[in-house]
């Protein structure tokens, strides 16, 4: 247990901050995902064939290619792109791109592919009659979406959003390969310096279980809250 002491002698504080980092990356990623999903779900639902194709390409690629490969693309590609720009301004040294940003964007894009399907399904499950009713009432498209579709859609999508959150949370462990100090990376460092990998990786597993358990409870509460009227 002394291995987990808080302060210089143990790894308790390091692992605590690593857990916060995991939560931060996962939260950033899921919101990037929601943003992308809003765009690509509207592409998939639009009448334009080209937009449909773009939407389908996005979800097919990022749900069919391993997460790790996508992370490598952004990790190596991200610094490459920044260095390319820097070269134009006469800076030739190696630049390492912020691991948090790269990780959040990479996981966000993957998470967005799952969210796109969730949003699309939820919008499609809303009764068409509502669209006609709001037209009759003379609402414009913006108000129609913000006041009528999105509130209903979120309630229907909530259980699936909970699933996407769990996937996203677990996917953040893969960002450890880029050196961002989240739970997995911190456990790797601790395991290396104490030569006790079994303890630290098992503890990492416990931390993840704790996070998934807490988030499941929170989502259940939200679901209950939003289905009050139904």
């Amino acid at each position, binding site marked *: 247990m002394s291995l987990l002491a808080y302060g210089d002698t143990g790894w308790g504080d390091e692992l605590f901050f690593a857990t916060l980092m995991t939560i931060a990356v996962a939260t950033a990623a899921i919101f990037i995902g929601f943003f992308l999903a809003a765009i690509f779900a509207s592409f998939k639902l639009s009448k334009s064939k080209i937009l449909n194709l773009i939407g389908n390409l996005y979800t097919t690629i990022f749900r069919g290619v391993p997460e790790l490969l996508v992370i490598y693309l952004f990790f190596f590609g991200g610094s490459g792109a920044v260095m390319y720009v820097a070269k134009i301004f006469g800076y030739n040294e190696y630049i390492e791109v912020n691991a948090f940003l790269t990780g959040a964007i990479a996981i966000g894009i993957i998470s967005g592919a799952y969210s796109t399907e969730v949003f699309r399904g939820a919008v499609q499950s809303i009764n068409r009659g509502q669209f006609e009713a709001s037209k009759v009432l003379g609402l414009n498209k913006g108000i129609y979406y913000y006041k009528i579709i999105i509130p209903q859609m979120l309630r229907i999508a909530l259980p699936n959003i909970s699933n996407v959150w769990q996937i996203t949370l677990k996917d953040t462990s893969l960002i450890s390969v880029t050196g961002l100090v989240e739970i997995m990376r911190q456990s790797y460092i601790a395991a290396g310096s104490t030569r006790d*990998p079994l303890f630290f990786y098992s503890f990492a597993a416990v931390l993840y279980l704790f996070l998934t*358990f807490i988030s499941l409870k929170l989502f259940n509460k939200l679901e209950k809250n939003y289905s009050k009227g139904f």
Partner: protein
Amino acid sequence: MDLMIESFPKLLKATMLTIELTLLSLFFGIFVGAFFALLRTGKNKLFYYFAYYYSYIFRGTPLLVQIFIIYFGLGQVEWIRESFLWIFLKEPYSCAILAFTLNTGAYTSEIFRSAFETINKGVLEAASSMGLNKISIFFKIKLPIAIKQSLPAYGNEMILMLKGTSLASTVTLLDLTGVAKHIISTTFRPIEVFIVAGSIYLLMTFIIHTFIKFLEKKYSFNN
């Protein structure tokens, strides 16, 4: 473009390892999944909770943690190192397969369990009133219905496992992702390599998808 052509044979060779890992893990995973699904549907409370927590733990933690515990962690335990198990557990290859099998087994057990639980009670009552014994009810009625029920979900699980094998690269194995990463880190041209490796993965995903659709058609009762 040159790099894409140049790296293609290397990536294709690495694909063999990816396919091998996927198929072996799925094969063993079916047995693990069926075993735990049986424990979950059985009457013994102790076995039930054992299977429940097994699935809960393996589905609630990242696959990366599971591989690391098995590959880096188990070697630390004295009695494992001295037992015959060490022949397998010192190799990254068998550790990866063990981790993948246990992981996919947890998801598969959930798929099988819900398939067995959703079988219409009336069908089983009809079968027993026709005088079929328990064994033939299981093999002739329960199993075909359960297989049909679980096909779409199991297809998803196959694709997830295919993607999951990319984590083998974190324990030094040179699978498709491992080789792709190696080429990227030596040439610093990630986009070309990503396109080639990504296309190979998408092709495999497509094959699994088509295969499952074919099976679904074969097992559908309507025609």
